[in-house]
C-alpha cells in the first residue's frame, strides 16, 4: 500500500470503516429484528377479504396467500403504493371536512428513490471492469435528453430535485416541521451534499475519470493504490458517501429493509384458514367453566339452565 497521508485517510481508511459499519450494522439490525418473533398475525387489510366465492376479493391489498403478500410488499417497495392513497384533510367553516387526494409526497419520494437507484447502478461503471453492457444501456437512457456537456443525467436532476422538494415539503408544512427531528434533516442534507459534490465532479472539476476508476478499482480489489490526477473534491464526495454508509444502519434509513419485514404488510390475510403459531404463547389462568358453574350453579338450576354437576 503506497498511499500518502490524507489520501490514505479519506480514500481508504474512512471508506473501509464505513463499509464495515454499513454491512455490520445492517446485518446486526436485521438479525436483531429477526430475533424477535412475530407472535400474532396482524396484516393491515385494505379492501375485500376472500370469503364467499361470489364476492370478489382484493388480491393486491388484501392478499390471502404468501405469494400475494409478497406481491403487496413488492408493490409497496417499488411503487410506494400506500402513498398513492394519501389525502389531505382540511377543515372549513360549518364545519366541513374535505379529504382531497394528495400525491406530492408520493411523487417526490418516487423521484428521489428511483433516481438514487439509477445513480448507484450507473456508478458501477467505476466499480466493474469491463463495464457491463446493461450499465451502459442504463446510462444511455439516463442521457436520453443529451443536454449539456458532459451530458446531464436525468437521474441527477430528479435526484437533486426530489431531495430538494422533500426538504422543502418538510420545511414548509408546519405539521411536518413540528414532528421533524435532526435525524430527519441530517440524511437529507447529507444526500444533497453527495449529489452536489457528484455533480460538481462530473461537470465542473475537469477530473480524470480513468484515474478515479483506477483508484476505485484499487479499493475494489482490496489493494488500494495512489493514483495521480484525482481532485480533492473527489475525496469530499467519497467522504460524504462514507458518512452515509456508516450512518445508514443506525438511522431511520433502515426503513429500506424494515418495510420488507413489516408484519402488517408481509403477512397474508389468512389467519382464520391457516393457524399462526406464537413461539412464546404463554399459559394464562383461565376462569374455568367448572369454577363458573360452582359460583352460579344454584341460580342456573333455578332458572332451568342445564348444569354439568348437580
Amino acid at each position, binding site marked *: 500500500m503506497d498511499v500518502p497521508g490524507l489520501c490514505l485517510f479519506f480514500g481508504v481508511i474512512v471508506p473501509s470503516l464505513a463499509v464495515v459499519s454499513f454491512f455490520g450494522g445492517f446485518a446486526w*439490525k436485521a438479525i436483531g*429484528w429477526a430475533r*424477535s418473533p*412475530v*407472535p*400474532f*398475525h*396482524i*396484516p*393491515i*387489510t*385494505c379492501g375485500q*377479504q376472500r*370469503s*364467499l366465492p361470489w*364476492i*370478489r376479493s*382484493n388480491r393486491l*391489498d388484501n392478499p390471502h396467500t404468501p405469494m400475494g403478500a409478497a406481491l403487496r410488499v413488492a408493490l*409497496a417497495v417499488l411503487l410506494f403504493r*400506500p402513498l398513492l392513497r394519501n389525502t*389531505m*384533510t382540511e*377543515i372549513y367553516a360549518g*364545519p366541513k*371536512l374535505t*379529504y382531497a387526494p394528495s400525491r406530492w*409526497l408520493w411523487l417526490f419520494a418516487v423521484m428521489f428513490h428511483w433516481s438514487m437507484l439509477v445513480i448507484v447502478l450507473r456508478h458501477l461503471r467505476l466499480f466493474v471492469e469491463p463495464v457491463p453492457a446493461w450499465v451502459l444501456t442504463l446510462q444511455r437512457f439516463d442521457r436520453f435528453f443529451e443536454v449539456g456537456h458532459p451530458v446531464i443525467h436525468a437521474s441527477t436532476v430528479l435526484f437533486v430535485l426530489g431531495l430538494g422538494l422533500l426538504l422543502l415539503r418538510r420545511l414548509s408544512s*408546519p*405539521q*411536518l416541521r*413540528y*414532528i421533524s427531528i435532526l*435525524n430527519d434533516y441530517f440524511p437529507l442534507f447529507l444526500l444533497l451534499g453527495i449529489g452536489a459534490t457528484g455533480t460538481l465532479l462530473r461537470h465542473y472539476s475537469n477530473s480524470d475519470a480513468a484515474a478515479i476508476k483506477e483508484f476505485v478499482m484499487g479499493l475494489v480489489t482490496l489493494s488500494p493504490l495512489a493514483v495521480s490526477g484525482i481532485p480533492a473534491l473527489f475525496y469530499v464526495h467519497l467522504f460524504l458517501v462514507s458518512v452515509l454508509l456508516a450512518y445508514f444502519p*443506525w438511522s*431511520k434509513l433502515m*426503513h429500506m429493509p*424494515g418495510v420488507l419485514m413489516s*408484519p*402488517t404488510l408481509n403477512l397474508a390475510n389468512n*389467519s*382464520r*384458514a*391457516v*393457524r399462526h403459531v*406464537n413461539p*412464546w*404463547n404463554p399459559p*394464562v*389462568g*383461565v*376462569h374455568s*367453566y367448572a369454577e363458573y358453574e360452582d*359460583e*352460579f350453579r344454584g*341460580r*342456573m338450576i*333455578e*332458572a332451568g*339452565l342445564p348444569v354439568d354437576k348437580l
Partner: protein
Amino acid sequence: MAVNVKPDQPEYYNHEQLTQIDYRPPAQAWESRPVTIRPGSFLHPAKPKGASSLGLPHPRQWSPMDEDWKLPADWKEIIITGMKERLEKYRSFKIFMDTCVRCGACADKCHFFIGSGDPRNMPVLRAELLRSIYRNDFTLTGRLLGTLAGGRELTVDVIKEWFAYFYQCTECRRCSVFCPFGIDTAEITMMARELLQLVGVSVNWIIEPAANCDRTGNHLGIQPHGMKDTLEFFADEIEELTGVRVNVPINKKGAEILFVTPSGDLLADPGTYTCMGYLALFHEIGLNYTWSTYASEGGNFGLFSSADLMKRLNAKIFAEARRLGVRWILGGECGHMWRVVHQYMDTMNGPADFLDVPVSPVTGTRFSHARSTKMVHIAEFTADLVKNGRLTLDASRNDRLRVTFHDSCNPARAMGLIEEPRAVLKSVCRNFFEMPEETIREKTLCCGGGAGLGAGENMEVRLRGGMARGLAVKHVRDAHGVNRLATICAIDRVTLTTVCDYWAPGVKVAGLHELVANALVMKGQKKRTHDFRHEPLDPES
C-alpha cells in the same frame, strides 16, 4: 353552557367552541409542552377491586388530576425492563420503533387529530412519545447523543403524557393504511398500554368489564339467570311484534353451532334490536344452535389492555365449544371482537382441531376461509343465506329508512369484511347511500369510542374523535336524507348514537341484523305493523 351540565355530557360542549380547530401546531416543541389533563379529556383509573381481581400489578386508588400518581418506587426500571421484554417478544414493536421516517403521511389521518388539532394526536407523534424513549435507552445513537439523536429521558411527565395520549387512540389502524411501511399505531398503543399497566396505570372502563368478563363470562357482568331472562324477554318482544314464538337455546349440549356475540347487545338499545334480530333469524332458518352463559362475550377488553388478558378472556370461547360439543362457532356483529377472532384467537387458544370446518346447515356452503379457526362472521353467514335465496325478505318494511353503512375499524382493516354486510344490507333495504369514499371501507373513520374509550367521563375526546365520522354522516343526511346508520359493531351502536346525536342529529344507529329482522318474512307471522323498535312501519297510518 347550560346549568348543571357536566363535562361527561355531550350538551356541555358548545359546537362552535369544539370546532375551533387549528391544524397548525403550536410554537412550543412537544417535548417541552406540558400535557393538560382536564375533566372531559381522560378516563377514570382502574379501581383497585377490578385490578386486583385480575391480578394486575400495583392496584391502588389514584387520580389523573393529582400531582402524585402514586407510581411504584421502581416504576422507571419496570417500564424499561417491560420495554426490553416487549422488544424481544414483538418484531412489530422493534421494526415500528426503528423504521419511521416521519414523512407525515399519517398525520392528518387520525380522527382524534382531525377533531382536536392537538399535534400529539398525529399518529407519528403519538408513536414518537414512545419512540423517543426507545431511542434514548435502546439505540446506539441515542445512548451516545441523547437528545441530538431524538432521545428523551423517561420521567413521570412522560408517563402522564402516555396515559393521556395512548388513551386517545382507538387502535383503529386508519393511519397505518396510509403508512408506506405499514407502521401500525394500534400495535404501538397496545405496547404502551401494557407498559402503563405494569406500573398500575390503567382505566376502569376497560379493567372493570374485563374483570366482569373473567368472572361472569361477559363485560356487563350479566349472570346466567339474568342472561336467560333477557333473551326470554326478547323472545316475548318478538312474539308481540311478529306473532312467532322463537326458541332460546342456552348452554345446550350437542347443538351444531355455538353463537357468541358482544354482551352489549343484551343490554343497551339499539343493540338489543340487533340481538332480537339474531333470535328471529336463527328461528326462521331452524338453526340448531346455542347461546352460552359462560362464553357470553364476543368482545374482548383484554385487547385494549394486554395480550395475556386478551388470551385469558378469549380462551372461554373454544373451551365452551369443546364442552358443549358443537361443530363450529358463529360470531355476532362486533368490531374489536373480530380483530381478536380473526387475528388472535387461533394463535392464542387454538388449534381448534376438535371442531369441524364450518358448513352452513341451510345452504351447504363450506366456509373454507375459516377452516382453521372454525368461526364464521354472521355477515358472511347471512350474506350466504341471502345469495342462495334461503330467506324471504320484504325490503319495503325498511322503506321509511334511508340507510348508510359505517364500516367498523377492525372488520375493515383487520379482516376485510366489506362487501358481505353491504350485500345483506342491499337485500333488506331499498334506500342505501354510501358515505364519501374517503370515509368508508379501509379508509373508514372511527366512532371515536373504541378500544376502551367509550366511557362518559372522556366525552370531549369522544365528541372530537367522532367529529370526522359525524360530519360524513351529516353529509349524507343532508344530501340524501339519510336517517339510519347501519353498523356491525356493538360499541359503534352505543358510541355512534352519541356521535350522531351531536354531529348529525336525526340519524339513528342500527345493527345490520335489526334491519334483516325488520325485512324477514317469518313462517306463521301475523301482519307486521311495527318494526323491531315498535315504531310503525307506515308512519302515516
